[in-house]
């Protein structure tokens, strides 16, 4: 606010300095008169002093800031001598020294945690972790019988992260009971709507940033581009696009990601780009990004399965076993990966 910066600024107007000088002089004069018993001049000088302090407190701008003027005036006038002391030594310095209220600043947009970043913690979709593991939900969804349980399962899927929830929602979409179908449909539609909504917002931000080209904006641009890559990846990963639309989306994601990577070296982004290229069946580019990710600090146990996938695409089957063995101590969160790893490492042992 304008007033805050004025308070904090060093250049006070000459009016306020004048006010202070006048006030001090008048107060002293008033005191002298009072001690000599002259009432009227004492009161008059005291009033003048009050005005002077008011002027000083308001930084000379009485019209625009009547509040401090009146308050200071009042305090000095009603309390002889001590009022002046208090205002001068305590009150006005305190006003000048005030901390401005916390700036609301830029609100951080919480982007969904792209499934690409390792660790698997879906922290972004609220702190609520669904306490039901995905596998039992799948069993329930594929079961027959009372629809009520399936409805409840679908409701639970709302809170789950996209990677696990979307395939299950698609299963529910073919359910025999209409209520389940409609609910799954509504949830899928909402997810896609949110994704596309975020993309629109990000595109608008990007446009706004294209106009400005200051150096500090580069970091913001990189962040927006990274977010765009993530969102486009989510569209593909969640199965919201197929056919050549999927190809187009992957290309867009790769483009945004690449641009962002040029401006800000980011390990998780490089990893994401690797996954994008793998999905687009471009193992060469994928390897390039995966190596970049490795050099930027992403752990080898995370990269290994992706290297293995690239090897598979390049038909270098002999390399897969050793790579997966590296990823061997992956946590329980990836049972399918463990099964795959077992297959390939077992083959290795056989040959």
């Amino acid at each position, binding site marked *: *606010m304008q*007033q*805050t910066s004025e*308070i904090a600024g060093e250049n006070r107007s000459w009016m306020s300095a004048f006010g202070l000088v006048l006030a001090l002089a008048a107060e002293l004069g008033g005191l002298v008169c*009072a001690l000599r018993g002259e*009432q009227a001049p004492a009161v008059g000088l005291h009033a003048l002093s009050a005005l002077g302090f008011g002027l000083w*407190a308001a930084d000379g701008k009485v019209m625009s*800031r009547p*509040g*401090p003027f*009146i*308050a200071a005036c*009042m*305090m000095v*006038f*009603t*309390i*002889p001598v*001590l*009022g002046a002391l*208090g205002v001068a030594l*305590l*009150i006005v310095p*305190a*006003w000048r*020294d*005030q*901390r*401005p*209220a*916390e700036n609301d600043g830029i609100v951080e947009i919480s982007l969904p945690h792209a499934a690409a970043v390792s660790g698997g913690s879906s922290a972004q979709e609220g702190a609520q972790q669904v306490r039901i593991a995905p596998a039992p939900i799948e069993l329930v969804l594929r079961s027959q019988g009372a629809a009520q349980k399936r409805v409840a399962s679908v409701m639970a899927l709302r809170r789950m992260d996209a990677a696990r929830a979307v395939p299950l929602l698609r299963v529910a979409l073919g359910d025999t009971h209409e209520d389940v179908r409609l609910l799954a449909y509504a949830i899928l539609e909402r997810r896609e709507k949110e994704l596309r909504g975020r993309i629109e917002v990000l595109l608008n931000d990007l446009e706004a940033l294209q106009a400005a080209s200051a150096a500090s904006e580069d970091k913001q641009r990189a962040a927006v581009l990274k977010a765009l890559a993530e969102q486009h990846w989510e569209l593909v990963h969640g199965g919201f696009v197929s056919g050549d639309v999927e190809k187009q989306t992957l290309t867009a994601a790769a483009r945004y990601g690449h641009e962002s990577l040029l401006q800000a070296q980011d390990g998780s982004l490089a990893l994401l780009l690797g996954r994008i290229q793998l999905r687009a069946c471009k193992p060469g580019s994928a390897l390039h990004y995966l190596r970049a990710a490795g050099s930027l600090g992403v752990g080898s146990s995370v990269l290994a399965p992706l290297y293995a996938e690239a090897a598979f695409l390049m038909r270098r089957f002999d390399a897969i076993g050793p790579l997966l063995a590296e990823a061997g101590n992956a946590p329980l969160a990836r049972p399918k990966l463990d099964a795959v790893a077992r297959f390939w490492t077992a083959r290795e042992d056989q040959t």
Partner: protein
Amino acid sequence: MAGVGFSLKKLRDDDSYTGLIRLYGAAGIISSGPWLLSILTLLFIGIIGRQLVPNTVALQRFQVSVTWLFAASLLWTGPLQLMFTRFIADRDYLGEHDQTLPNLHGALAVVGAATFALAVPFVVQFEDSSWLFKWLLASAFVVLSQTWMAIIVLTGLRAHMHVFGCFALGYGVTFIGCMLGAPYGETGLLGGFVAGQSALLFSSLAVLAKKMPAKTPVAFRFLERRSLFFELGVVGLLYNLGVWIDKLIFWWSPGTGQRVLGPLYASEVYDLPIFLAYLTIVPGMAVFLVRVETDFAEAHHAFYAAVRNGAPLLRLETLCQEMTDSARRAVVDIVKIQGITLVVCATVGPWLLSVAGISELHLPLFYIDAAGVALQVIMLAVTSMFFYLDRRRAVCWLTGMLFVSNASLTWLTQRMGPEFYGYGFAIAMAITSLVGLVALSRTFQHLVRDTFMRQPVVS
């Protein structure tokens, strides 16, 4: 706003015997410290100043002036105090923490101007005082009024230790100032008093300025119509009137009151006993702070938080019961502690009075005043709890009842003769407390229902 701060809560959770003593000790200091300080300081000034003043009349004039200053400033700012506290609480709830300080400064400006304007026609009536004395009287009136505003904000922030510190500083300066000024008669004493009160005011403003963020130095938002609850203003006025009216009646009645200075009266027979009686509520206030402002406040907060956060009904009813129980405990504990205090007074009283050189004739009045004052603490508890439940209308009625009953019964008992002095005050307190307790009990009975059913539907 948070409870009474971590320290008191931690003390409360300590179940040992010493822990209990520490808890109530701290509560005592927090709740009663400030005004005890002021009373004791004035007492000491009276005792020691007697040696320093040119004549005893000066001391008496000073003491009567101070009494009237307190009464007048409390009565005058009472309405605004409550409305302003509510304003601050609302801002706080909405998260607008940076509104408190600027609006306080605005309030001080308004109060200062209005008070001074009110004071001037009043002080010119003091024919036989110097103009400096009149000026100081007006200043003191202004400073006291402003001080109450600053103190309620600090209290609202639960900065109890700071309040105590400011009072200590302020009354320390008062004492020194009065000692220095005593040779100059009542003017000097009053000058010392003004110096001390100014120190109190400015130090509390400095504390506030350090603690609170603010974007502008002064704001007047509290004057907006929609921010003010006028019922609270009425309550503020009626409560203070209800508490002071018996003293006023005694001061102004020709039989019991004497004109001391200008338009100021005092009552030799009535003042001292009630003054001493107020000293006895320290234990009750400590219990009030712990039981009402901490325990009850917590239970109350838990209940309303549960309502908002979607708790099931059974849980809400349980929490409401806990709130009721804590209210009951509060009242019972206050009654117990003040009962004990009364017994102690009855036992130790005569001896104390003789030691202090006060005539034993004051004793009966002192006992009945002590009882009345104890009941006042209960009244305070009841009105506080009604405020927590936001039943402003009920408090309006209660305080109105207090004022009317105190005024009429005091006047009646005055006519009936000296044996009945003080009974008006006590009985008025008793009636109001009883009615308040019954009303409170009924409110608790239907609290869950009323919390939901009374909410208006806004489309």
